């Protein structure tokens, strides 16, 4: 069968198309973005009329997907790990409603925080919601698991979580797609039209069903083949390896069998009998998990009075950071490969705002006004390219916590007496989670000045469309009650610097809610647009 070179993200996207989805719902977030982008660019998906445009945030995405499932069609929702926090209300409750059409939630975790604020492990979220979780170890398995996940979802009427990590999401390998693909489902409402009504009386019944289903979920994990016990003669040690950690284990035994028994895990909840078997057979166990110690913690228990369990909790492996072949090898007692040290001359090259970026002009103006009239430490920022304003030479911001927190934290600090407080948020982050916070500020008449840096795109993740740009932003700001005269649009350009300073001074002086919108297109998006234009002209 012909193999295609696909990233993990792309393999998941192609599998969803082949498995007969009618829609994908997502907000961009590294390392999950390419799943939805692949479907958006796919001719096949266009022909099949698969809906795929960006959602405003992960919660609206999750709910959109759940609605499609209610209507009987297959849907997929994709996000990065912290996006699942945003979608959590809908996600956890979707376990209680259950699914109608197949519903698969893909979450891409980012251990080692390559592009993230934490390294939370979404398998815990799956456990919390009490739904099946799948964790592929390579790209082909990711492709196959999507098909399986939709089947499982429709047979057991449950959402299924597919958990991947950065290294699988952004690594390419040969993938053989299935030759026989599935048609989309017909519109078909749930048999019981109250299935999705989570009134307490109904939710209690549904929850009992979910509890009862745990046995089915475990049985599926026993029979699917994604969990397997590989025999080994040396029973002084038993190895449990989940997802991509299995690859790092294999890497340490090139061209040879692993001498110890291995329990390879790719599906949760893990059946107890599988854990029992390897526990009984071996003198001690070592657990390799990419993420938090989920299985390790369960095996040790609070009292840790059984056999010796090695892993992230006893220091055999560092608690934080992603695994790699050398870390796994060391834990197994292999000597570290001989290597050269990093020469002293090497200095870091941190990411930075691009030359010509509009945010540079905004930060220069904000910094100047603060230096002139106020003390430092009053700029509450958000998540996007402009977070790089934390680094020198700007050192312009004091917080970055979660999507939308700039406005609400500035409000809280202003409530505490830090006035004026300044919020800095991008156009896409504002529509994602900033609007509700702005309503809070308006209702309280808080002394905050909110900068909505409108660069006409979701820049950090590669220039996806924003939910609202241009005049629509002013409409929203006006609509939530900010006074017309305190909505100021400026052009973040050097030639308007003095003019902009004056606007900022005026609004910081105003003891209520002001919104300043520095508006100029992202320089990278502009560059791409110009190149396309040039190409069209020359062709």
């Amino acid at each position, binding site marked *: 069968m012909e*193999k295609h*070179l696909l990233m993990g993200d792309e393999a998941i996207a192609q599998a969803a198309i082949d498995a007969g989805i009618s829609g994908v719902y997502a907000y961009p977030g*590294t*390392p999950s*973005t*390419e799943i939805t982008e692949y479907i958006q660019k796919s001719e096949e998906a266009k022909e099949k009329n698969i809906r795929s445009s960006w959602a405003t945030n992960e919660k609206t995405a999750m709910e959109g997907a759940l609605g499609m499932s209610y209507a009987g069609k297959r849907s997929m929702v994709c996000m990065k790990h912290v996006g699942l926090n945003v979608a959590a209300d809908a996600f956890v409750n979707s376990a209680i409603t259950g699914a109608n059409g197949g519903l698969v939630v893909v979450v891409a975790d980012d251990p080692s925080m*390559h*592009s993230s604020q934490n390294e939370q492990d979404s398998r815990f979220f799956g456990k919390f919601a009490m739904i099946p979780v799948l964790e592929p170890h390579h790209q082909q398995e990711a492709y196959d698991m999507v098909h399986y996940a939709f089947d499982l979802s429709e047979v057991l009427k449950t959402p299924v979580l597919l958990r991947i990590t*950065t*290294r*699988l999401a*952004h*690594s*390419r*390998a*040969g993938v053989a797609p299935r030759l026989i693909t599935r048609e989309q489902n017909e519109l078909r409402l749930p048999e019981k039209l109250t299935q999705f009504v989570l009134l307490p009386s109904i939710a209690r019944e549904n929850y009992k069903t979910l509890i009862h289903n745990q046995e089915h979920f475990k049985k599926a994990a026993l029979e699917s083949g994604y969990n397997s016990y590989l025999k080994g003669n040396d029973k002084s040690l038993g190895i449990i390896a989940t997802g*991509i950690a299995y*690859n*790092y*284990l*294999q*890497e340490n035994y*090139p*061209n040879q069998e692993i001498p110890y028994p291995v329990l390879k895990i790719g599906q949760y909840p893990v059946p107890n009998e599988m854990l029992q078997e390897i526990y009984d057979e071996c003198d001690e166990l070592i657990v390799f998990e990419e993420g938090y110690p989920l299985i390790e913690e369960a095996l040790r228990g609070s009292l840790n009075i059984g056999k010796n369990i090695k892993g992230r909790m006893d220091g055999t492996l560092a608690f934080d950071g992603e695994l*790699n*072949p*050398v870390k796994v*090898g060391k834990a197994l007692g292999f000597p*570290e*490969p*001989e*290597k*050269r*040290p*990093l*020469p002293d*001359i*090497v*200095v870091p*090259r*941190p*990411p*930075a*705002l*691009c030359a010509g970026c509009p945010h540079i002009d905004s930060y220069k103006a904000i910094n100047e006004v603060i230096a002139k009239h106020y003390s430092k430490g009053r700029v509450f920022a958000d998540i996007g*390219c402009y977070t*790089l304003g934390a680094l020198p030479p700007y050192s312009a911001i004091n917080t970055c916590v979660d999507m939308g927190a700039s406005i609400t934290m500035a409000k809280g600090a202003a409530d505490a007496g830090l006035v004026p407080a300044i919020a800095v948020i991008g156009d896409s982050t504002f529509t994602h989670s900033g609007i509700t916070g702005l309503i809070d500020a308006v209702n309280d008449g808080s002394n905050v000045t909110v900068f909505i840096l409108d660069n006409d795109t979701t820049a*950090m*993740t*590669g220039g996806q469309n924003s939910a609202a740009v241009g005049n629509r932003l002013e409409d929203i700001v006006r609509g939530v009650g900010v006074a017309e005269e305190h909505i100021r649009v400026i052009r973040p350009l050097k030639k308007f610097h003095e003019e902009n300073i004056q606007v900022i001074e005026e609004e910081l002086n105003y003891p209520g809610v002001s919104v300043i919108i520095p508006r100029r297109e992202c320089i990278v998006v502009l560059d791409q647009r110009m190149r396309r234009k040039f190409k069209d002209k020359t062709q």
Partner: protein
Amino acid sequence: MKKDIIISGVGGQGIVSMAAIIGTAALESGLNLKQSEVHGMSQRGGDVLSNLRYSDKPIASDLIPEGKADMIISIEPLEALRHLPRLSMEGWIITNTIPFNNIENYPDIDGIISEVRKIPNHILVDADTIAKDLNARRSTNVIILGAASEHLGFELAVLENAIIKLFEKKGSKVIDQNITAFYKGRELAHS
């Protein structure tokens, strides 16, 4: 046949294209392949790294273990050194000599080059100047690829076809430029 290659540089220098050419050559040769890179924050002028592995046997890890890379191919000299702990003791380091200077504390370039020269198996190429001479400024990465070509384990025709395939949509002029750049790089590796 098994090769583990680190490709490095700065965002926008053509790392992904270089990995794609070598990857295509590996696939056309019927080999297994894994190629990983980090996206996101690192695209904003930060350092970029790709792990490229190909083998006639199945490949387990997407990441090359430290101390095991057969080769570092870098489009930027500081970035070549950044990944030195990943190189095997017998490995090759093949790098452009021209810095991409977007940081205030960029180290002394002579110091960087002398560190590269400490690695017994090294190839240094001033790819930027050659690219300028060839009037193909965007082909710096392909010149470096040419300089590395002898150590990649492919017939020349296979690599040439992979270059043609990558630039197919850009027309014959771009293809010719890159083929010329490739051979120029290969020639310089010998001089």
